[in-house]
């Protein structure tokens, strides 16, 4: 690839797409070096930032600038001994703009990986070629599977330290792929790299002729960021009702929102949930343009044919493929806060644009991501970083999807009503997809909807 070596023209720059991805790996796997190299080689580290890194490196007695310092934390974190979850990094090539959610990879930071993976379309999992797949690698694979990240990259790093040997890479790739596939990860790309030497990060490696696949950056630039949305059910959570009541627009009544999934078309019969009333889409305003079709993740304003009572918190979905409305939500959750989650707790549940009261009715099991996904039944509580199953009863009916079907309308937060703290991240339905090989031959190469 030569795309990163020359400045891009204004025209080239405006025609790119956006990829959100997350990285996971422990400190020693070379994640900071990989991230530093992606930023550095794509010209996203500028000279004043490099100077700052050089100053800080010298101050710590290091001779060479430590690229890991580019992703170093805030002083407040060091002083208080805490780590704020996710740092976001930005870089671009001629083909794509990238948003990287850089998450710490320590065992106790499951919640940070969950946070970073929640918005990611791709996750990069690093392993050290000398160590192969370790417990943490399985944990990272499990989080990517749990959050239904559509694309997973296994970067087998430090290939220079195993003499760039193909069998080492092949064995690790095989072990990881079969494990991730057993959790239902639909697409896995394994790449042998040396982040330090630069092999297969941006430039193809001269040391691994046996590898015919893409470099990490090539893969990031070309992996599809959207699926054929015609196969996904349309979901439109109403954020805000736009009623100008002005002389120019006396009767305008539009429902503003961001399409969470699928396509909306003028003329589509739709159902408004939770009320269940039906109408058709009379018009779509796409931020100033009147359009016939709009799709996720566009922010639009929808006009309905009938004068229904629709307000913030309602969900508009196609009649015929609308989600069931329920007050009993069974979900897989990641507990995010030091305060444990217990049976009987009264919480707020924030789903799409609606927030309702809820009670924790049961905690059926806790999943240990480190020991073959062992289930511990009926735990006393879910502690911070715990993954587990929760049964909730809500005060009002919710149009909630299975997270496996639609990420954004299957996801929710639990919030402490007393002080507003975000306690728990929830995903309606079962934790892991069935491995696709066991799906009875129903070939589904489309990947997950998102």
């Amino acid at each position, binding site marked *: 690839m030569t795309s990163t070596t020359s400045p891009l023209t204004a025209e080239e720059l405006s025609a790119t797409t956006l990829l959100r991805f997350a990285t996971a790996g422990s400190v020693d796997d070379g994640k900071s070096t990989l991230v530093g190299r992606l930023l550095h080689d794509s010209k996203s580290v500028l000279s004043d930032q490099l100077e700052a890194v050089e100053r800080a490196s010298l101050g710590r007695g290091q001779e060479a600038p430590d690229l890991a310092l580019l992703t170093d934390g805030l002083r407040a974190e060091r002083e*208080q001994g805490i780590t704020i979850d*996710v740092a976001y990094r930005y870089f671009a090539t001629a083909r794509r703009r990238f948003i990287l959610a850089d998450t710490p990879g320590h065992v106790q930071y499951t919640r940070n990986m969950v946070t970073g993976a929640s918005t990611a379309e791709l996750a990069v999992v690093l392993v050290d070629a000398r160590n192969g797949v370790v417990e943490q690698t399985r944990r990272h694979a499990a989080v990517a599977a749990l959050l239904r990240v559509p694309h997973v990259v296994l970067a087998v790093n430090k290939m220079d330290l195993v003499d760039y040997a193909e069998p080492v890479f092949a064995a690790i790739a095989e072990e990881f792929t079969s494990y991730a596939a057993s959790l239902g990860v639909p697409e896995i790309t394994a790449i042998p790299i040396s982040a330090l030497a630069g092999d297969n990060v941006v430039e193809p490696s001269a040391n691994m002729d046996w590898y015919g696949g893409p470099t990490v950056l090539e*893969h990031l630039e*070309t992996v599809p960021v959207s699926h054929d949305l015609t196969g996904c059910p349309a979901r439109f959570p109403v954020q805000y009702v736009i009623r100008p009541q*002005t002389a120019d627009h006396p009767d*305008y009544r539009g429902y503003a929102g961001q399409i969470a999934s699928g396509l909306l078309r003028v003329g589509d019969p739709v159902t408004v949930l939770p009320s269940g009333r039906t109408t058709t889409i009379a018009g779509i305003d796409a931020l100033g343009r009147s359009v016939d079709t709009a799709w996720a993740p566009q922010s639009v304003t929808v006009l309905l044919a009938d004068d229904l009572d629709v307000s913030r918190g309602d969900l508009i979905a196609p009649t015929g493929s609308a989600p069931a409305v329920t007050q009993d939500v069974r979900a897989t959750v990641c507990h995010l806060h030091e305060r444990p989650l217990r049976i009987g707790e009264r919480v707020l549940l924030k789903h799409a644009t609606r927030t309702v009261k809820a009670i924790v009715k049961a905690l059926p099991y806790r999943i240990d991501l480190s020991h073959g996904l062992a289930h511990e039944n009926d735990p006393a509580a879910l502690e911070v970083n715990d993954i587990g199953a929760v049964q909730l009863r809500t005060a009002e009916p919710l149009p909630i999807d299975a997270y496996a079907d639609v990420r954004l309308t299957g996801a929710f*937060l639990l919030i402490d009503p007393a002080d*507003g*703290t975000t306690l728990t991240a929830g995903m309606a339905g079962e934790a892991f997809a069935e491995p696709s090989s066991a799906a009875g031959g129903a070939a*589904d190469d489309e990947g997950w909807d998102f």
Partner: protein
Amino acid sequence: MTTTVTHTEQRDSPYALTHLDALESEAVHIFREVAGEFERPVILFSGGKDSIVMLHLALKAFAPAPVPFALLHVDTGHNFPEVLDLRDRTVARHGLRLHVAKVQDYIDDGRLRERPDGLRNPLQTVPLTEAIASLRFDAVFGGGRRDEEKARAKERVFSLRDEFSQWDPRRQRPELWQLYNGRHAAGEHVRVFPLSNWTELDVWQYIAREGIELPEIYFAHEREVFNRNGMWLTAGEWGGPKPGEPVQTRLVRYRTVGDMSCTGAVDSAATTLDSVITEIAASRLTERGATRADDKMSEAAMEDRKREGYF
């Protein structure tokens, strides 16, 4: 079937959005969430490019209805006249309500004292926090971007501030999916950053695509400047130049516009949007590194000011 894909020239489906459309949709979503969940939101509006882009997005988010937010400007007293001019014309054109909190008022009545170095950016924090408290704003939109500075890389889209506007890292909430938790106690507020995921280049490309008017000082022009700490500062009432700081005429433009005492111009021949975009794409300095004296004070300068209630 799970597969290890081999590399082929994969193409996006026809439903892929351009990065500008994706960022625009996200920002509009954030504006609408705040309109739906808060009582008294306000947009921090200086007339600089980021605040102008914020207002443009807010106008699009609620059209054909008016923007349901007021504007607030913290006036350091050392503003560029071209910027104030566009600020006032924009407010008038869209029929908006603008509140102005003036640093000069605080200096005149003794609540604030002029710093020995003459910098007024650090003095903005008190008028800003007092305006938020007295006007009872509960959501305050800022144009901050995570690419600007290390202290901002971990900033939330919804950043909770206590009644003194202070930022406590322990109280910041994880943000997952598109679920923003804006709950706050009485007297507290939330700073909201709709441009969190934008870069300087994205802002400029969006300005070009949307045909947004900017103050002319963002484009190359001849200006009387003098050099201080490696930056080209404009001579003016605010206190420059000192003896030994010769004034010269140079072809310059501004990459950021803030207080004249600490915002430097850069040498540039870029007179059009396209040439500015080309220049930024090739730049080897961040916009703050190139133009902001106040951020160079220490490694943690921005972080310190943020904790005290700065943007």
